[in-house]
C-alpha cells in the first residue's frame, strides 16, 4: 500500500510514477512528483519505480527562484 495525496492506494511491484499517474486518472500535466523525500521530474516518470509504503505527493507547480 502507498499513500497518494494522503490517501491509501494499492501498490504493485514494478509500478512506475507514470503508471501511477495513469491509474489515478489525473490529467493535470505534472512536471514533478515527490516520492517520499525525492523529487521526480517528468522525464524520469517512466523509469522511476515507486517503492511499497511510499508517500507520493503530486507537485502542482514549479515556480522557480
Amino acid at each position, binding site marked *: 500500500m502507498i499513500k497518494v*495525496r*494522503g490517501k491509501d492506494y494499492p501498490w504493485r511491484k514494478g509500478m512506475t510514477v507514470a503508471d501511477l499517474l495513469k491509474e489515478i486518472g489525473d490529467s*493535470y*500535466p505534472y*512536471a*514533478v512528483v*515527490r516520492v517520499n*523525500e*525525492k*523529487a521526480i*521530474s*517528468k*522525464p*524520469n516518470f517512466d523509469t522511476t519505480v515507486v517503492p511499497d509504503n511510499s508517500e507520493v*505527493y503530486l*507537485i*502542482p*507547480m*514549479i*515556480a*522557480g*527562484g
Partner: protein
Amino acid sequence: MTELRFKEIKTLKFERAAIERGYANQTLYVNLSKPEISIKPVTQKMKETFIGGKGFDLWLLWNAVKGTTQWDDPENAICVSCGPLGGTPIYPGSGKSIVTTLSPTTGSVMDSNVGGYFGPYLKFSGFDAIEIQGEAERETVVLIDGIDEKVQVLEVSGLPEDAYETSRILTDHFGQGKPRNISVISSGPGARHTLIGCLNFTWYDAGRKRARYKQAGRGGTGTVFSRKNIKALVVRWDAVTLSTNRPSDEEALKEVAKMHSHEIVELDPKQNEMARIGTTHLVTIMNDYDLLPTTNYRYGQHPQAANIGAEVYRRLFDKGFDGCWIGCTVACSHGIKDFVPMTGPYKGMKVFVDGPEYETIAGCGSNLGIFDPYTVTEINFYCDAYGIDTISFGTGLAFAMECFEMGLINETHTGGLDLSFGNRISAMEILHQMATGKGFGGIVGQGIRKMKEIFSKEYGADLKIMQDIGMEAKGLEFSEYMTKESLAQQGGYGLALKGPQHDEAWLIFLDMVHNYMPTFEQKAEALHWFPMFRTWFGLCGLCKLPWNDIVPEDNAETLEPAKIMKHVEWYARFFSAVTGRKSKPDDLITMSEAVYNFQRLFNLKMGFGRREHDAIPYRAAGPVTKEEYESRKERYDKQLAEKHGVDITGKGTEEKVQILRRLREEMYEKLKDAVYKRRGWTADGIPKVATVKRLKIDFPEVLELLKANGVTE
C-alpha cells in the same frame, strides 16, 4: 583587535511619527559629506503613484541624481525602504526591504529585494525609507534608534573587516541585552575591492541566539555602500505585533493572513518542503529538464548534479526555525551549523553559514563545474563574509573559466592559477583575492562587462566570442537558469529593467515544459502580467515565495493556474486591509505598471532604456559552439527541419549553428516588438506619452525626457 570606539559626528533627535495604515509618512535623509540628517515628508501623491518600497526608493533616487551621475559620485544615493505591508508579523513573507542605487556594473538603476528585519524596523522607527548621499571621510556607522528617538552618524574604529563579525559585534553593542531589537546592514572587504559587492541584512535568530543574514546581492549595492565609507547601518526597534503597522482593518487583516499562513503550514510539507530544504529542491529538477547552468551555461545537465541537490543539503542544514521575518511560515532561510572552511581566514574554525540557496548552488557549483557541496558552502560563506554577490561571482568566474579553457586567457594572466572548470582550489583563491582586490580575482570582481574589455584590450582575446559567451546583459551577470529553449524566459531576462535577474519573470516551465504560450502575443502577455505582479511585491515589502511556491490544492481547476489567482485575491485583501485603499487584483497590476514604467524611464534618463539595451548574449538564446550543438544534435536538427522548415541534408554543424542562430535572433527581436507593443512602448522600447499619462507618471521632467528622446505621442 583594537577597541571598538564611536565618535559622534551628527545627531538628530526626533519625535517618532505614528504609523498610519502601513505608512510612517516621512523618509529619512542622511548626507555623509556635509554631514546632514533631515526628515522629508511623504506626500499623498507619492503614496498613490509609487506605493512604497521600490517605488519610494526610485522616486527618492530620481530626485537625488542627474542623468550624468556616476555610481561613485557622492550624489549617488543608496535608498532602503520597506513598503506599507512590510512589518506584518502574521502574513508570510512580509518583512522585505528593497535597496536601490546606481549600479557600478550597469551604470543605471539597480534594485535588490532582501529579507531581514531592517526595513520593518526602520518604518516602525518612523521612516518609510532611508536615503543616503555623500561620502564619509572615515568609516561610519549610521544608527537609527526608534526607541530612543535619535539618528546618529558615528565615526567608528575597531570593527573587523568582514560582514559576519561586524554585524555580530554591532548587534551585541547596540542591543543593550535585547539583540532581537537590532538589525544591521553591513558589507565587507570584497565589496570595497570589487564592483559586485552585496549587502548583508540581519535578522536575529532567537532559537540559535545569533544574528543571521540575508543578502541584497545584485548589481553592486555593497560596493556603493563601501564607497560611501559606510561600515554599517544599524536600526533599533522594539517588539512587533499585528498592531504595530496600524492596519486600517485589523480583523480583515487577521482573517486573510491566517488563511495564507495556515495554507502554507498545511501544504508546504506536501509540496516543495521549503521550510525544510529552502529552494535546493530546484537543483535536480532543473538538471532533469536540462535547465541547470553547467560550465558557463554551455549545458543544462550534469551526471553529478545530485551531489549538490536537496538530498544532500537536507542533511547538512541545521534543523530549526529559519524565517527571515517574524512569524513567516515559509521559513526558507536555512543554514549550516559548525561548518569548517578549508581555506581563508576562517580555515579550521567552526562557523555558521547562512545558505546556500538554489542560485548560489547553481552559480558557484554546477556553473563552475564544481559538484562538491562543501566547496559550494565555503564559497557561500566567504562571499557573505567579504560582501560579494554569489550570483555575479559564480557567473563571472564561469565566464573566466571558459575563456581559460578556450585559450583566450592563460596562466600568465591568471597569476599562475589553473582556471579549468571544476578547479575548486582556484575558485576559492579567486574569491579570497577579491577580498583584497589583488591578483586575477580583482579582475574577475570587476564583472563580465569589464572583464571582456580587459581581456580584449590587454590580453588580445577575441571580443566577438566573448560577447557570445559572456553571460551579462545591461552589465549585470545572469542569474542561474538556462534559457536556450525558452524564448519567453530570454525575454524574462533580456527585458528585465535592471538586467538579467529572474525576479521579474520566471516563465521557463510555462513556456518550455508546458508550452502554454506558443505565440509571440501570448509570450508578450506573460511578459506583461508577470513582471507587473512580481514588481508589486517590491512595492509593498513582501516576498514572492508565498504567492506561487506553495499552491492551493484546487489551483489546477482555475482558469489561469500560473497566476494563482486565489493568492492574488488574498494579496488584494491584504493591501486593502492595511492601507484602507480598497483594491482588486487588477489594481495591483496598475500600481506596479506605474512604477515599472517609471523605472524604464529612469534607465532612459541615465542613458539606457532603449531597444539596444535589451540585447542578450547569444549563449542565452542558443548553442554558440559546435560542441554545444552536437551535444543536443537531435533537438536542434529536429527544430531546424520541423519547426523552421530548413532542409538540413548535407549541412555541417557549423552551418547549422549559423542558421539556427539567425532564426533564434530573429525570434528574439520579434518578441521585443510584441512585448513593447503590449506594454505601450515605442518600437525603440520607450514608454509612449499616452502610457505615462494613463499611469499618471507624466511629471514635467518625464515629459521633457520623452521629448528629448523624440517621443511626443
